[in-house]
């Protein structure tokens, strides 16, 4: 047996019912090389303090629940490995820019509202009945939007975006990626309807192209690209609506 290795994990704890503000606590956790930071947190919960609270489920970087600030960087804790930090201390904290509900759990209701507001469903360009079978979509047409379908709603990009931190009303990178996904789908004809949101005061112009959102995105969605392409779209729409009577939203 090789010697048991230990890592120090510093957790930003916050118990709303007894704490005024968050504070740090350090735990010494035994680990093996295949252990993720999420498993580190689970170890703490199972063995030291059952009140430690965090979200998780799939453990395979697909459900989007387990985002945390790990040494200041937004990451999925289930695919971040303790071995990569050893022998230094790991600090974990609730995702930045969101209100902390308890320990590592943040309030996501604002994000969910945004996600709902982008009309993230096919608004058919052309209605088709089920007997007519599937819509024809060539692999190239699929490629136009596929990248933006990969978003797992993990909100790491929100924790990365200072503009969202400064203005929580900003629709933000993740929701815009989803909006763009539908706009780019050949089956969809809803781009005009969605323009109202894109071009609004909560819309894309809050983004100053910091770009960190795309940097941290675990699924390579490139939400910064979705936001910024839509600045151009919104600008076009803005100027075109003076020219053509029906161009764009109100």
């Amino acid at each position: 047996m090789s010697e048991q290795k230990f890592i120090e994990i510093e957790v930003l704890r916050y118990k709303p019912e007894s704490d005024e503000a968050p504070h740090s606590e350090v735990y010494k956790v035994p680990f093996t090389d295949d252990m993720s930071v999420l498993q580190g947190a689970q170890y703490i919960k199972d063995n030291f303090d059952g009140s430690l609270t965090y979200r998780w489920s799939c453990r395979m970087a697909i459900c989007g629940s387990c985002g945390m600030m790990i040494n200041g960087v937004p990451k999925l804790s289930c695919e971040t490995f303790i071995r990569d930090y050893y022998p230094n201390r790991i600090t974990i904290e609730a995702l930045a820019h969101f209100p902390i509900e308890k320990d590592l759990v943040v309030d996501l209701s604002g994000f969910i509202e945004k996600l709902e507001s982008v009309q993230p469903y096919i608004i058919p360009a052309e209605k088709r009945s089920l007997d007519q079978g599937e819509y024809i979509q060539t692999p190239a047409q699929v490629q136009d939007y596929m990248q933006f379908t990969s978003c797992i709603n993990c909100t790491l990009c929100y924790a990365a975006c200072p503009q969202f931190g400064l203005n929580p009303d900003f629709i933000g990178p993740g929701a815009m990626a989803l909006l763009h996904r539908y706009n780019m789908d050949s089956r969809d004809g809803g781009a005009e309807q969605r323009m109202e949101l894109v071009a609004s005061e909560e819309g894309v112009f809050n983004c100053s192209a910091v770009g960190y959102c795309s940097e941290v995105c675990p699924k390579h969605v490139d939400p910064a690209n979705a936001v910024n392409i839509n600045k151009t779209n919104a600008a076009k729409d803005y100027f075109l609506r003076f020219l053509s009577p029906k161009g764009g939203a109100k």
Partner: protein
Amino acid sequence: MNIYKADVVIVGGGGSGLRAAIAVAQSDPSLKIALVSKVYPMRSHTVSAEGGAAGVKRDDDNYDLHFHDTVGGGDWLCEQDVVEYFVQQAPIELTQLEHWGCPWSRTPEGKVNVRPFGGMKIERTWFAADKSGFHILHTLFQTSIQFPSIKRFDEHFCVDILEEDGRCQGIVAVEMATGEFTMIQGKSVIVATGGAGRIFRESTLGGIVTGDTQGAVFRHGVALRDMEFVQYHPTCMPITGLLFTEACRGEGGYLVNKDGYRYLQDYGLGPIGDKPKNKYMELGPRDRLSQSFYFEMQKGRVFEDPVLGKHVHLDLRHLGKERLHERLPLICEMAETFLGIDPATQPIPVRPAVHYTMGGIATDNKCETTLRGLYAIGECSNVGLHGANRLGSNSLTELVVFGKLAGDEAAKTAKSVGFGNTDSLHKQAEAIEKRVTAFKAQTGGKERVATIRKEMVQTMEDGCGIYRVHDTMQTTCDKLAELRERFKNVELDDKSSVWNTDWLTAIELDYQLDVAQAIAYSAINRKESRGAHQRLDGYEQRDDVNFLKHSDAFYVQGALPRIQYADVKITKSQPAARVYGAAGEKADAERKASHV
């Protein structure tokens, strides 16, 4: 306690729950729907499904073939009328998903493409790269947003159902963010809470796949059916149990033992062809593959590693980097992140892990349980589709086919009955609140939730593994009884209200212990080998005389579950030997010959 009234209450925001919600919303926009889920719907475990969803698509395929694959795969424990309905609805529902935006992978002409899958005779698995479940779930969730009649209760934990006058009349849920209780009164209730695989130790399943709601329903006198059938997936990552999809084998991957030998040919799955052939070798059904691993292990022909333990290799190298990255991007990513392996140059260590619970809340062929007004769908249910062994890619399709059916049925029911008596239901709900809140008040015991859970999952793995014998199953039963006792001494670390997951896991565990008992007792009582239930203690053969039957476990307060047997509906496929590989082909030919 808050009170909310909805026509249809749906518990579970996974693929099946969402599909049902949309069905209700579309059938009548005036029906109010409450969709309750302990996680945001897009976190549901459907998200993890990789391979795809089965439905007849190609010209050379037909319903009959899908039917026979399913029934044979299920070792004839399937309800055949249910399977028939299923195979016919499958392509319709999968096309519906396409219309809602699901990014199915396409052929060069722009039509939906299909891939081969274990146990399926013909390519009929619709897929969206290797993130099929992810795309299905997000498509359904996003589609559901357009229906204003669906009121979501996200991150609300359902602690029990309400029953009065022989009908299910609603549920009680805890809002996780506040710890507050809400009674959601309904005219009909659909349970869509997913599987129970987390009752086992090494599993491919997410932390939410706990099976607690099955336990709640169980306590209301509804049977848990065929619980002994637990599917082990043959290709999982050692330790974490993370899944490498069957599509790896569908695309042509090999399973080799430590001698580099494709050992499946020794277990009735050969011979090896020069191309992957459906139902041969690696494309055999999951139970067979997992069982072969077990024997290889007995023979000492598997790899052993101090960290990874016993395993074999899933070899994808011959597929080439390009094809791997196009068809199996998630697999490449997972192997890279979790194991530091590039599947294009190195074989992947794999072993079997618990993956699916065939058993579940017993329903009729319209998804209704014996408790009127209560429906169950998806992995938590047992409508009779999978029998003793589920074929890969049938369950994603099950979600949409039976989600739709249950939604339509529950909508009909909701329109035909009125609301029950709110006051008396409220009293019931308050009693439930009192019961589950009591966990927090319990002091003085020194048991930890985590410890009991750990022992439960270990004993389930020991006793109800790939192969089973009476003595270890008995040990498991005894251990579960002991844990039941010890559970009374649990003391929580966290007694607060806001986001108290310590408390919620205790509620979960309480129910899980019941479900675990249902599994163990169903298993020990089935004295034969069928599908995923394989015994080595004198019951190695299938016994159609005594056990061509569903086992129904009933809850008995303070005592062991009662196991009863029910007939299987057989319409057109009489039980036959379940054979694969060359033997399977021969049997198929014989069957055909005898039909004409």
